[in-house]
């Protein structure tokens, strides 16, 4: 556990120095500030549209930051051989993979939290409304980014950053398409909704209820957490197995 914590801290310290993290955060913040001032939205804009846009930004930002960090870490460490003094010690490959994921998950969480705080502040200034419901969206974006980081790490144990990015994006696309695909195939009616056990990322699609409705229930948040744990555990086990079988 000591090794995992030490490595996670190192990943965290390295990640917060990466320009991409700050550039994405600043860019998303600028967009959040811009939304209420756009003429089309201006005075008539409803706060729901603002929430819609910042939630989309939140998901996109967490995806970009998570992918940018995850697809380069392991290939970079192997290429620069900085991984040798780590794994030559009594550190198991699964510990290395999990610690790397853990560090990145925390970084993405911090970035999402910072953006959420800014978005809530901008919302309060522009619409005189404390949009604490955005925290639920932030939670979903963070958990989904955790899954995406795990997928990207899984690919990056064997493939280049470009291939890993394509693989992770394909996973996200397919993961979000499955519930809709199921509904299309089954047709409308009372059995049209995708069953809970169907493996997908549909559980993280909460932009509409958070932006336009009253948010999501505690049960849904719990289900989301369970789905996150299941996905992350499965992907990290696969990533550890793949990385363990790799010659460095």
């Amino acid at each position, binding site marked *: 556990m*000591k*090794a995992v*914590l*030490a*490595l996670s*801290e*190192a990943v965290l*310290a*390295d990640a917060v*120095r990466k320009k991409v993290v700050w550039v994405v955060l600043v860019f998303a913040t600028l967009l959040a500030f811009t939304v209420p001032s756009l003429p089309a939205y201006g005075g008539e804009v409803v706060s729901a549209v603002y929430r819609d846009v910042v939630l989309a930004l939140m998901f996109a930002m967490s995806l970009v930051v998570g992918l940018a960090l995850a697809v380069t870490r392991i290939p970079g460490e192997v290429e*620069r*051989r*900085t991984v*040798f*003094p*780590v*794994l*030559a*010690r*009594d*550190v*198991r490959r699964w510990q290395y993979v999990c610690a790397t994921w853990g560090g990145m998950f925390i970084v993405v969480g911090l970035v999402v939290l910072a953006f959420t705080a800014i978005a809530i502040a901008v919302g309060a200034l522009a619409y005189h409304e404390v949009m604490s419901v955005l925290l639920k969206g932030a939670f979903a974006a963070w958990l989904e980014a955790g899954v995406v980081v795990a997928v990207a790490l899984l690919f990056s144990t064997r493939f280049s950053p470009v291939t890993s990015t394509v693989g992770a994006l394909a996973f996200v696309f397919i993961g979000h398409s499955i519930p809709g695909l199921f509904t299309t195939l089954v047709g409308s009616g009372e059995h049209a909704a995708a069953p809970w056990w169907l493996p997908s990322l549909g559980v993280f699609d909460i932009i509409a209820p958070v932006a336009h409705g009253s948010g999501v229930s505690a049960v849904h948040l719990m289900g989301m957490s369970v789905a996150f744990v299941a996905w992350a555990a499965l992907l990290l086990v696969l990533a550890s197995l793949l990385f363990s*079988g790799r*010659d*460095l």
Partner: protein
Amino acid sequence: MGEAGQAIRIEHARKDYGQMSGGRREAVSDVSFTVSVGAIHGLLGPNGAGKTTTLKMLLGLVRPSGGTFEILGKDAASPGARSPLGFLPEQPYFPSHLSALEALTLYGRLAGMGRSDVEEAAPGLLERVGLDGQAKTQLSRFSRGMLQRFGLAQAWLKTPSVMVLDEPASGLDPIGQRDVRNLMLEFRERGATVLLSSHQLSEVEAVCDEVTILNRGLVAARGHIDDLLNVKGQCSVTVRGSGPLPTEVEAVVTETASSGERRIFSIAEKDVRRVVDALDDSSWKLVSVVPKRDSLEDYFSRMLAATPEPATPESAPAAPAESAAPADPGTDVAEEVAQ
């Protein structure tokens, strides 16, 4: 379980890689050697001999295709087996955004040390490797030689019982190389066992108690470096002067090299007395008479020439070890590996 007194035991190590063509390429065919506790053991060989792959298999960085690897009697792949081990990779790179102290703290924690223990040990450790006052300097500002020294410091964290050093003096200036040699001797004095992979004969000669020479994935020879490289029955004579050598000397000289007034030649051991007397009676001044020794480069060249190329890389059987050993009369004292 390894025998008592063995810090490292490698038995029948083998590594082959799959190829795009569908065949297999053997990087290490059959390597076995042991390193005694408290010894400095050199692992030598030309490029592609399998040194680094063998070390990587021992350290769990490469999956062996076969063989046994033990560190202090424990299977090297088992949990905890590598905790008493320090490792310096070849041309080491470290996270460049960290300072020397931060990086030492990371590696120390990975080795099971507490943060405060590392912070306490770091200044002394950095001073010992010649990096005193550099604790807060970022590693990105370190020169190659400084990184090499830092590599030794991180390997020496927690005072390991076994050190594995891959080309530790690579890229260092002569002073740096001398410092590294002294450090290795200091490691041994403090009770550590050192397994050293190197190309540099001077480094190996100065510190190693015994060496294992690899060639094309096999153990070609092992023993003391003197026993391996000294040419049996031959001496090297250095003289200073000008003009032709005395006739008695010219008659027995086999190889000659000259530089200015200095001339170096080889003679048979039995002719030494006669040659010295003849030189005393001439205008030539005798500088030295020493046992003739091959350079490691010559040794490797002969070894490569003596080992036939495998017919096809993927299907070639492992060449017999005795054919890998050079046909050198000086190696008969060393243990040439025939099994």
